[in-house]
């Protein structure tokens, strides 16, 4: 048994506890420890990518209780991929936070590490109830991070966010309870076997539970009818928290991909392809509505939040194609959109800081300090997010459309993706020209230089460079995405690894 599988779960937990024990010690210690823990997580995640690269599925039985009686952690290519994206995003969000925002309230680093604990656990677990528990951990930490720093609008947005997610958790429990009541197991691999073998009279209940679960994941991923909580929450929280939250909607997308390829996939007998008729139309509608929000936004951070909604639409469109090429395109698009929207959140904060009273409101104001560098970064981030060539956003969209060529809904997919791209382009071009081109002459009293530039721009440049890396290394990255998709579409490999770890027949 490979003990490294549990390391990405334990490390942030232990780091969080240690940070809590440090108490009111010098903030430098907190920052060093937190950054150090995230750096080790990146290393661990890369090690897991290497260990799963050959197609091995690593199973870690907690307490050495064999599946399906105990809880298992499963590291396959998909889980390792998500871990790497999370750890890299966390590093840059943290680097932005340690400029001073982490001192705006107490326990920022503790909550940050516990959020990573929940995220890593959710990606690695192979048990449906355990997935619920890790969801709760990451949500509870995110409530704290969302409210970090305080303020009226943040409290109001936080209240909505918490209540919506609590209702979502209740629905999750109803779905899990129904599945257990009908099938008598919660281990995902065992569930896959039993769903496939379920007698016809229990299929309606299984389908109902599966669709309820889809509703929960759609809520977490901010899919169309359930996205309303997202814009206010993301637009009003602190910038590093918003950047880290860029991965949170992807947890919902991951849940959809995992559960509906493994448990309700093509092999699931009478419950096969449960959400196929729902996912694609909802994703396309989310894409359009999200982009409409981007066009209508009156504040830069609100615009970035709606871009997160639209990116979920693009991502789930790719997953909804339900073929290997589509899923691979989605997995290539996932890190791109995570890094690009996170960069945009950080950039919006850096810009808002230099505009005084105006903040991030999209009204013409005086020329801001360092407008050259920030404008350039905004241009790169906007090109990436809008999906213009040559950056990774374009490649992601191109791969999605190429995978859709044989799909019966091709005209709809083509129309929605291209129209959304155009809307995003118009909105971001307007924002950019408004902030940097049509700026009024500087006021005489305005300070010549803004806040310290290096600390702010290094994380943004880092995130954009990651996007650039995805573009330059598109070949190997897409090969990896393709390998993940192939593995995800062969659930029998996962089931075999979990239920029969020794490989004995």
């Amino acid at each position, binding site marked *: 048994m490979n003990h490294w599988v549990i390391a990405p779960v334990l490390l942030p937990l232990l780091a969080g506890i240690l940070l809590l024990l440090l108490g009111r010690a010098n903030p430098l210690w907190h920052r060093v420890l937190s950054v150090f823990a995230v750096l080790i997580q990146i290393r661990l995640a890369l090690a897991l990518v290497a260990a799963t690269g050959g197609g091995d599925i690593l199973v870690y039985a907690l307490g050495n209780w064999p599946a399906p009686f105990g809880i298992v952690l499963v590291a396959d290519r998909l889980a390792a991929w998500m871990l790497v994206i999370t750890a890299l995003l966390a590093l840059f969000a943290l680097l932005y936070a340690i400029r001073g925002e982490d001192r705006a309230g107490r326990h920022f680093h503790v909550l940050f590490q516990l959020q990573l604990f929940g995220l890593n656990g959710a990606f690695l677990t192979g048990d449906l109830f355990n997935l619920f528990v890790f969801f709760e951990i990451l949500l509870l930490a995110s409530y704290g991070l969302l409210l970090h720093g305080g303020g009226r609008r943040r409290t*109001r947005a936080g*209240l909505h966010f918490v*209540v919506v997610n609590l209702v979502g958790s*209740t629905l999750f*429990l109803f779905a899990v*309870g*129904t599945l*257990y009541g009908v099938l008598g197991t919660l281990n995902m691999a065992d569930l896959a076997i039993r769903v496939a073998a379920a007698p016809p009279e229990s299929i309606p209940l299984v389908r109902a539970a599966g669709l309820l679960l889809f509703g929960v994941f759609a809520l977490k991923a901010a899919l169309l009818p359930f996205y309303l909580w997202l814009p206010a929450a993301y637009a009003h929280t602190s910038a590093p928290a918003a950047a880290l939250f860029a991965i949170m909607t992807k947890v919902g997308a991951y849940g959809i991909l995992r559960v509906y390829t493994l448990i309700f996939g093509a092999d699931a007998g009478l419950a096969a392809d449960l959400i196929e008729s729902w996912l694609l139309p909802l994703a396309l509608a989310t894409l359009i509505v999200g982009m409409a929000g981007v066009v209508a936004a009156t504040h830069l951070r609100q615009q970035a939040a709606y871009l997160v909604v639209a990116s979920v639409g693009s991502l789930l469109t790719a997953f909804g194609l339900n073929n290997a090429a589509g899923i691979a395109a989605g997995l290539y698009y996932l890190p791109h959109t995570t890094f690009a929207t996170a960069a945009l959140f950080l950039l919006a904060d850096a810009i808002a800081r230099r505009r005084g009273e105006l903040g991030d409101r999209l009204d013409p104001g005086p020329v801001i300090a360092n407008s050259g560098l920030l404008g350039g970064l905004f241009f790169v981030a906007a090109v990436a997010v809008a999906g213009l060539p040559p950056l990774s956003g374009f490649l992601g969209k191109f791969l999605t459309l190429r995978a859709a060529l044989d799909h019966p809904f091709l005209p709809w997919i083509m129309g929605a993706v291209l129209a959304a791209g155009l809307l995003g382009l118009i909105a971001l071009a307007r924002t950019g020209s408004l902030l940097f081109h049509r700026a009024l002459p500087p006021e005489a009293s305005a300070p010549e230089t803004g806040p310290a530039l290096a600390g702010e721009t290094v994380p943004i440049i880092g995130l954009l460079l990651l996007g650039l890396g995805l573009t330059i290394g598109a070949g190997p990255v897409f090969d990896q995405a393709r390998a993940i998709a192939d593995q995800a579409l062969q659930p029998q490999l996962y089931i075999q690894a979990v239920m029969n770890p020794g490989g004995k027949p």
Partner: protein
Amino acid sequence: MEALIALIIGVLTACGVYLTLRARTFPVVLGLTFLSYAVNLFLFAMGRLTIGQPPVIAAQAAGYADPLPQALVLTAIVISFGMTAFVIVLALKARAELGNDHVDGRHEP
């Protein structure tokens, strides 16, 4: 007994949904509590309702009461306790900062 349990879960859920949709934070918190009670009962009943059975398999016993849902319910109760405590504190904070207990922080005549 099944009918009674089902009725109770249904009534609790209905009350919870109704109260969660109210405009003031206190009924919303109560509604979330009702919803979590309903789901706890539901999870508990998913191990089937049995009376007088041992919790683990014994050689002499004819059957056993499934212990797993009880463990699940314990976890769910702990989590919902924590969440309820958090949402109460948050509602109080919102009342203090926004000046009223409307979920949108709106002042109404």
